[in-house]
């Protein structure tokens, strides 16, 4: 069977990355629900599902390699393929971070009440970023990609606030809970960072420039 034409392969690649991004966003939502509602079985499922994300990444990379091999793309098409290879790695990592959150749930230490609202909010912002990144990957909408930067600022603010709660002398929950919350905050923040990177890579693939230099 002859290979599909390059535009078809590129479309497949974008679709694959979009699906992957949605999958890890769903994983993060489920991990967050598991965290806030203390649902260990749900967390275990998130941990198991990570294998699927890894398989999707391998598939994306195979698609990209085929495109390079059969069509030897140049210029914009080459940029799109290379950026897809990188993006697949970022999205896989987002899945890994959702799994890390699920692992904290499985460890079974209760989550202190005063960090719940911030962590819940971080989960919402992160899932939203993941969904937007999926949309950017699918539609290559550069303006939407820039929106992710603002959302990420929200995440950074939440992260700073979480640390204030932790470092407060009134913290009553001891060191183990503080360690958990430190890591959870970091996982959400990294998830958001990777979502932004995915969007940036897409901007680069479309325009050939990193987002900062776009004059809008």
């Amino acid at each position, binding site marked *: 069977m002859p290979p599909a034409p390059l535009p078809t392969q590129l479309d497949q690649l974008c679709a694959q990355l979009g699906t992957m991004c949605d999958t890890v966003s769903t994983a993060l939502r489920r991990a967050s629900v598991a965290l806030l509602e203390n649902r260990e079985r749900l967390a275990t499922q998130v941990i198991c599902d990570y*294998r699927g994300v890894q398989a999707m990444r391998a598939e994306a990379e195979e698609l990209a390699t085929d495109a390079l091999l059969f069509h*030897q793309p140049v210029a914009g098409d080459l940029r799109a393929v*290379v950026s897809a290879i990188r993006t697949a790695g970022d999205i896989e990592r987002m899945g890994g971070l959702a799994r890390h959150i699920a692992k904290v749930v499985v460890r079974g230490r209760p989550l202190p009440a005063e960090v719940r609202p911030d962590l819940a909010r971080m989960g919402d912002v992160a899932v939203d970023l993941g969904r937007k990144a999926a949309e950017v990957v699918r539609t290559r909408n550069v303006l939407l990609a820039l929106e992710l930067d603002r959302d990420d600022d929200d995440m950074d603010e939440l992260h700073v606030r979480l640390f204030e709660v932790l470092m407060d002398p009134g913290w009553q929950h001891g060191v183990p809970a*503080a360690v958990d919350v430190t890591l959870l905050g970091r996982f959400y923040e990294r998830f958001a960072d990777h979502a932004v990177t995915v969007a940036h890579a897409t901007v680069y693939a479309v325009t050939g420039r990193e987002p900062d230099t776009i004059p809008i």
Partner: protein
Amino acid sequence: MRDAYQEQLDELAEGLAGMCEQVAEALQKATRALLEQDLQLAEEVISEDVRIDDVRDAAEARAFALLALQAPVATDLRIVVSAIHGAGDIERMGDLALHVAQAARRRHPNPVLPTEIAPYFAEMGKVGVALARKAADVIRTRDLASAAELESDDDAMDDLHRHMFSVLMGPGWTHGVAPAVDVTLLARFYERYADHAVAVARRIVYVVTGRMPGPLAV
């Protein structure tokens, strides 16, 4: 023509290996800055990180030119794709060394680490630096046995990490929450650094064998 092409591939590999050595040095300095509250050394690591980012861009541009001009196939294509991944991993290692240096700077002149925890970090630093150096060797030699060695070295990092956490969570911990938060994040940086070094080695295995080794346990 073919020779110039081979030369370009070699340059690509050499560029990545050099990058590994740079981030090894960065982690070595950052660890010393952390353990000895050496502000100047911390600043050095922080300002040099920009250079590592530049090297990454150069490596990527080289990979790009190879793809566009030479249209490599089979193993050569695997090399170029792996180089793109590798450059990303190694840059991230540089960022993590930077985070360690930033922690040292933020708390200066106070030590970040309680005394009984410092030896763990000295050891994690040693293991991390050795992993990055080995990754450089693996890139140059494509030796599968050394690539496999990185996995067991990474186990040593994981053991240190786990053990340190048991100290942190244990009843003997008297330093309260704030240092525990610092230590938690710092330990994570070292652990991630090691994971990225292993990922680089795994990519080389893929270049040589055409198959990725099993999933990375992170």
